[in-house]
């Protein structure tokens, strides 16, 4: 269970980026955060694993507040929270399997991590996860040789090997072609059910959000304006959210 209570953040004084954001997410839920550019979607997502330090509020994962964690506790929180990026953020020069194994670093001693010493079980798990995302034949290829959709699936495998409770996806399909985007969204949805994950994705594509998400959170100018089941997202809500008539885009 992830509970966010009264989250506040401002980058400049008297210019709040987030005001009083609260929501709850149960395990096994695929959540889409939608809203116009600059509304604060990325700020919310990055506060959840404290890549951005928010100003006030609570972020409670299974009863513990991540915001009050010290450095070592934060590291333990972060390894339970996978993250998938718009630009994949892989080490392009390394092989696919090396990039997947990076997800284990949070569990290793500093020295073992620095020298990249992984156990046999970790390597086998990396291979089985690559199989799960359909890349078992690419394990020894350099990431720079892969297509966008394949890179994103490597990124997803890297987050899964962390044994996460939560996966945060920051615009996971914004750089992908429509077919790869479908593919990645389906994969994320399937994994959410299979591992009983909390999967939170920032999305610009409302039709994707409606199709795959269980719960939709709408953000406008740093305020939460919608937090319901995906089926309840109406055209009225979208009009308030985006200040204009974008229902045509849905068809």
């Amino acid at each position, binding site marked *: 269970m992830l509970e966010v209570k009264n989250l506040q953040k401002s980058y400049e004084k008297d210019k709040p980026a987030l005001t009083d954001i609260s929501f709850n997410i149960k395990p096994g839920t695929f959540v889409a955060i939608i809203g116009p550019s600059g509304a604060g979607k990325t700020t919310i997502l990055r506060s959840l694993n404290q890549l951005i330090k928010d100003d006030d509020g609570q972020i409670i994962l299974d009863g513990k507040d991540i915001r009050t964690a010290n450095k070592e506790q934060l*590291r333990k929180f*972060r*390894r339970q929270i996978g993250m998938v990026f718009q630009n994949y953020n892989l*080490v392009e020069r390394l092989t696919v399997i090396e990039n997947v194994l990076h997800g284990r670093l949070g569990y290793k001693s*500093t020295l073992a*991590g620095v020298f990249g010493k992984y156990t046999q079980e970790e390597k086998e798990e990396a291979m089985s996860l690559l199989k799960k995302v359909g890349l078992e034949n690419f394990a020894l290829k350099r990431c720079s040789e892969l297509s966008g959709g394949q890179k994103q699936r490597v990124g997803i495998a890297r987050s899964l090997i*962390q044994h996460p409770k939560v996966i*945060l996806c920051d615009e996971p399909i914004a750089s992908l072609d429509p077919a790869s985007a479908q593919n990645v969204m389906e994969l994320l949805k399937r994994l959410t059910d299979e591992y009983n994950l909390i999967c939170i994705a920032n999305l610009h594509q409302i039709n994707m959000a409606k199709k795959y998400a269980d719960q939709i959170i709408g953000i406008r100018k740093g305020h939460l304006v919608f937090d319901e089941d995906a089926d309840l997202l109406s055209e009225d809500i979208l009009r308030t959210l985006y200040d204009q008539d974008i229902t045509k885009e849905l068809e």
Partner: protein
Amino acid sequence: MQSPTNFLKHKGWHQTAIIAIIGGIYVFASWILSFDNLAGFTAIPRAFAWLGVNFKPTSSSMEFLPKIWQKLIQTVLLAISSTVVASAISIFIALLGSKVTGINGTVQTIVRGIASFFRNIPLVAWSMILLFSFKQSDFTGFLALLLLSIGYLIRAFMEIIEDEASETMLALKATGASYFQVIFQAVLPQILPSILSWILYTIENNVRDATLVGILTGTGIGFIFDVYFKSFRYDAAGMTVLAIIIVVIALETISNQIRRVIL
């Protein structure tokens, strides 16, 4: 709000004005220095003619070749060793000082300050300063090249880290990896090709610079060039220059090959 036609017209005027100003500065400067442009240009062919006649290596200058060769190898090794040591120091300092991997704002400012200090003192000044402390020796040349290279490499490495490593750094930080794990598993592998490319470039540059340093500190290829030149053995001096050119071109070719493989 001005119209597009007006805007473009203005832009055209701006460009003409800038070119006119630069031309004006040139004319003004040559008037102050009473620099005779025409004589300057006509002197160039004569200068080359003089070089061609006097600096041409003859059969008698062949006897200097073993000596030149020995000094040249010494110079190349000096350039390589100073670059390698400078790179090792610079990568460490650049990690401390870059915006992405750095410790904090104060350290970043200090590192930038150090880099710019080493970079902005000219090589000639470094050689002269160090000459007082370390006398005429290879070590003086080594240090002069080392300090200048450190100045350039810290700056270059910091920019490489900031450009190329920030995204992967963020991803690994998000997995709960510790600072050193992120540095060794993400940052260093990611930036390695660009770093090597800069190291190769610095080696080429240092071979050229080592010649100048050699003249000042009395070591290496620069020193024997100076000796031949001042003892009017222009043919031997020409031979020395030729040897330097060949070695620099060879080094450039080799490092271009290496770049092609690693990038």
